């Protein structure tokens, strides 16, 4: 058995500024300022301040400097491919005036009381933490400078930190960070208003594109530790047979054959919760074994009778009809401007269309997996998770342990995309360790488990109607969005999209159309609906941006020109004027919907992509733009459809305005990935249900884009306002929503065929 696994890799060198980077140190008293911030009340909080745990910026919590000068930074957000560990290092090293090569990044364990919010979701990490990170670096720099000044007995104004040392300018004396760390660590953390920050021209790393990933070596040599790689002495391995239908329970089971498999140790029944089951595990029959293979083999020999429960007849084909029927009738009004009827009365032309997007599974390449050890004294978990605090809360309640006794070690995530925001798999591992009397248990979802038991992106029907006057100007806009809501996970049976979901592109439509009505008829959830990279923005943007293309075509206009026109003049729209009460949790004053910025990305992407250029036969250009996670994105796709109806994508251009860009190289990689994930869901990915069960099981049925179908070229364009004072927008998700409609608009341009139902799959056969 492999040796013990030490997740936080605590430096053995003396650590003198701040605390050791280990996971089990006592909590630090909050700096006076952090406390003062927390005590500020009576004001509505937004952004990171409003998140559980809030924002922390005490350098003594996050930074340590060893006597050889090595700086260790604790990263408090989950790394799942967005590059957060590298970007964190860039920001802190820059403000600290540290040499990035002498900085190592360790991963903080779950503990929101100590580290602030850790729920890595909603494209929030840099958006919320850029300023606190700068403060961490700048305060530590100031503490080092003050320590040097005291050492030399000179005025602090005469010293300056530069490249990992502090220099006394008049005398040229210098001291390295290692030599100063101890004295610096003994000083008070400076007040916020005593901090000075670099100006952008002084940045060494922020905004620069030549930074290598801090995890590159581990990833390319196989030594990087993902959640699934945890190795704990004496651990056992388990898989669970879960109810195939949401709400199902075990009626009876026979494990005789399963127990005969060499290596199978124990069969454990996990009680299924009543639904709605929130984030609780689904229950079922677990097989605990000496290795994963024996557990899988044992599970295949279980004979289980299920009570399928109330969702046993969930069928995607009939459910689609149910949604379509709902979309054909008026529903709950969620935004209304002007008077729709008079808008249509003034119209010369009326266009309508109905769009469909099926459920999707996140299918991160590392399936959900967790290892847990539960004893009467406490509980320790090793896993890859987006929201460690959710695990701590669940296990603390489940086992009656104080939350401090629940330790969650955060390893790298082999992708998350929203799936690993849920603690269900960690709960299962802990339940099984408990059943095994404290033996550590690694619980693995096989790919089949992952695809059957995702928290699926919603399924949706979007119905749109538009009126156009004789000049081709829109006079009326009706949008009915019908989709089961994530809130149905928590009951009591909500049937409408929540403000969060409506605020993902449905109500926050920035169009200058005088008469506009947005409705949300009822839909009932029959499976677990959850977050998938960019969430409800996917169906909303697909429908809206497709429909803009349809309106343009109806009046023979250029898509891009029409899109710019429908957005109208440059203006900053307050969220309340869009009936958007969510706006991604941000302050509406700081984050108005800026139509100038939306038009900016459209113009940028169009000019970079050569909008209007001459194309080969069977090729077409399509465009789409969308704001999500308070960033603005636009995409132009060149699609090519062969006479047989085979689709290829020669080129994609994508532009983002996410405010100031901290790590341009990672912003580009997120956009590249978003394009490919968008192409995947547009072309081939679908989860469908029959008899309550997901019909797909693995990457043969649930297809995702592979290299040969990936766009031949992806060009990324960063439209960033200058300066770093502007509030930042999200990056991880906003690239996804405009991809599908840009593609279907391009297909329309290439073939005249309008795709209204995703995935495209073989809908193009024999159309050309």
């Amino acid at each position, binding site marked *: *058995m*492999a*040796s013990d696994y030490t997740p936080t890799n605590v430096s053995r060198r003396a650590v003198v500024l701040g605390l050791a980077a280990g996971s089990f140190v006592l909590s630090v008293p909050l700096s006076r300022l952090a406390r003062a911030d927390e005590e500020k009340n009576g004001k509505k909080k937004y952004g990171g301040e409003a998140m559980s745990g809030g924002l922390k910026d005490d350098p003594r919590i996050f930074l340590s400097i060893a006597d050889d000068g090595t700086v260790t930074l604790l990263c408090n957000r989950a*790394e*799942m*491919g967005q*590059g957060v560990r590298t970007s964190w290092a860039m920001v802190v090293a820059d403000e600290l005036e540290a040499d990035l090569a002498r900085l190592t990044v360790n991963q903080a364990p779950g503990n929101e009381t100590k580290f602030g919010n850790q729920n890595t979701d909603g494209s929030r990490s840099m958006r919320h933490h850029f300023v606190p990170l700068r403060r961490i670096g700048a305060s530590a720099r100031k503490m080092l400078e003050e320590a040097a000044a005291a050492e030399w007995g000179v005025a602090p104004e005469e010293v300056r930190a530069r490249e990992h040392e502090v220099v006394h300018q008049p005398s040229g004396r210098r001291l390295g960070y290692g030599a100063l760390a101890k004295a610096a660590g003994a000083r008070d953390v400076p007040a916020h208003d005593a901090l000075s920050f670099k100006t952008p021209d002084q940045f060494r790393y922020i905004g620069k594109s030549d930074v*290598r*990933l801090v*995890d*590159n*070596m*581990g*990833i*390319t*040599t*196989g030594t*990087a*530790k*993902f959640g*699934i*790689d945890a190795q704990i002495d004496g651990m056992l*391995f388990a898989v669970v047979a879960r109810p195939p239908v949401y709400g199902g329970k075990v009626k009876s089971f026979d494990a005789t054959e399963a127990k005969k498999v*060499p*290596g199978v140790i124990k069969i454990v029944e996990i009680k299924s919760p009543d639904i709605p089951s929130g984030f609780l595990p689904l229950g079922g029959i677990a097989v605990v074994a*000496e*290795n*994963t*293979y*024996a557990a899988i*083999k044992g599970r295949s020999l279980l004979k289980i009778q299920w009570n399928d429960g109330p969702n046993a007849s969930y069928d995607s084909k009939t459910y689609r009809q149910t949604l379509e029927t709902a979309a054909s009738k008026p529903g709950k009004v969620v935004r209304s401007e002007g008077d729709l009827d008079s808008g249509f009365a003034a119209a010369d032309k009326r266009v309508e269309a109905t769009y469909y997007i099926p459920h999707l599974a996140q*299918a*991160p*390449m*590392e*399936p959900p997996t967790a290892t847990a050890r539960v004893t009467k004294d406490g509980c320790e978990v090793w896993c890859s998770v987006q929201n460690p605090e959710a695990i701590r809360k669940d296990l603390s309640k489940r086992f009656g342990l104080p939350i401090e006794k629940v330790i969650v070690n955060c390893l*790298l995530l*082999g*992708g*998350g*995309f929203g799936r690993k925001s849920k603690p269900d798999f960690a709960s299962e591992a802990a339940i099984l360790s408990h059943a095994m009397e404290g033996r550590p248990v690694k619980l693995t979802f096989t*790919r089949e488990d992952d695809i059957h038991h995702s928290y699926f992106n919603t399924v949706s029907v979007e119905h749109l109607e538009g009126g156009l006057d004789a000049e081709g100007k829109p006079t009326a806009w009706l949008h009915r969005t019908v989709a089961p809501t994530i809130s149905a996970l928590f009951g009591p049976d909500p049937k409408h999209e929540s403000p969060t979901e409506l605020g993902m592109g449905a109500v926050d439509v920035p169009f200058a159309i005088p008469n506009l009505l947005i409705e949300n008829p009822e839909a009932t959830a029959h499976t677990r609906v959850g977050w998938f990279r960019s969430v409800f923005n996917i169906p909303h943007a697909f429908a809206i941006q497709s429909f803009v293309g349809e309106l343009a075509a109806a009046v023979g206009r250029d898509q891009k020109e029409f899109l710019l026109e429908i957005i109208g003049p440059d203006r900053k729209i307050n969220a309340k004027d869009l009936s958007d009460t969510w706006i991604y949790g941000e302050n509406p004053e700081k984050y108005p919907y800026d139509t100038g910025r939306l038009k900016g990305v459209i113009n940028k992407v169009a000019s970079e992509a050569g909008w209007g250029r001459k194309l080969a036969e069977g090729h077409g250009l399509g465009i789409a733009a969308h704001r999500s996670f308070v960033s603005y994105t636009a995409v132009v796709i060149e699609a090519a459809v062969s006479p047989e109806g085979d689709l290829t994508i020669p080129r994609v251009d994508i532009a983002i305005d996410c405010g100031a860009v901290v790590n341009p*190289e990672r912003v580009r*990689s*997120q956009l*590249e*990935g*978003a*394009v*490919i994930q968008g192409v995947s869901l547009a072309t081939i990915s679908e989860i469908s249900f029959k008899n309550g069960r997901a019909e797909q099981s*693995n*990457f*043969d049925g649930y297809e*995702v*884009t*592979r*290299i*040969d179908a*990936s766009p031949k*070229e992806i060009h990324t364009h960063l439209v960033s306002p200058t300066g770093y004072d502007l509030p930042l927008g999200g990056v991880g998700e906003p690239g996804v929503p405009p991809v599908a409609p840009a593609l279907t608009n391009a297909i329309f341009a290439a073939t005249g065929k309008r795709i209204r139902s995703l995935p495209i799959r073989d809908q193009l056969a024999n159309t050309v």
Partner: protein
Amino acid sequence: MTNFTVNGKPHSFDGDPDMPLLWYLRDIAGMTGTKFGCGQALCGACTVHLDGAATRSCVMRIGDIDGQEVTTIEGLSPDGSHPVQVAWRELNVAQCGYCQVGQIMQAAALLNEVPNPSDEDIDAAMTGNICRCGTYPRIRNAIKQAAGGAK
């Protein structure tokens, strides 16, 4: 009893010969560099070299590898200096990184056979390796860069 080598070291296994090599490597030998992604030869995350050929370890019965040489990512190069690994770092190919071990093993096998692959060669060789994060454009570029560097 099955005898084989992993990265040049002798291994022997007398358990269930149906066990896929992947689970032997990960759960019994404690070598976690090789990843589990699908268990059905559909994603390439588990790719190793078996007598030099890229092989999906998740469907390779351990009973069938007697006398063969297994190379995993841990043995591709002693210090991460294989041209494919170097190119992967220079181009920051990885996002989450989880699929990349399989991608690297597959790409290294490709370059052994086709030292200067075309785009078509790359697509054909790499299509069995899924990257859910969407790093394909950089994988293409990194393979070409590694091919150039290996000349």
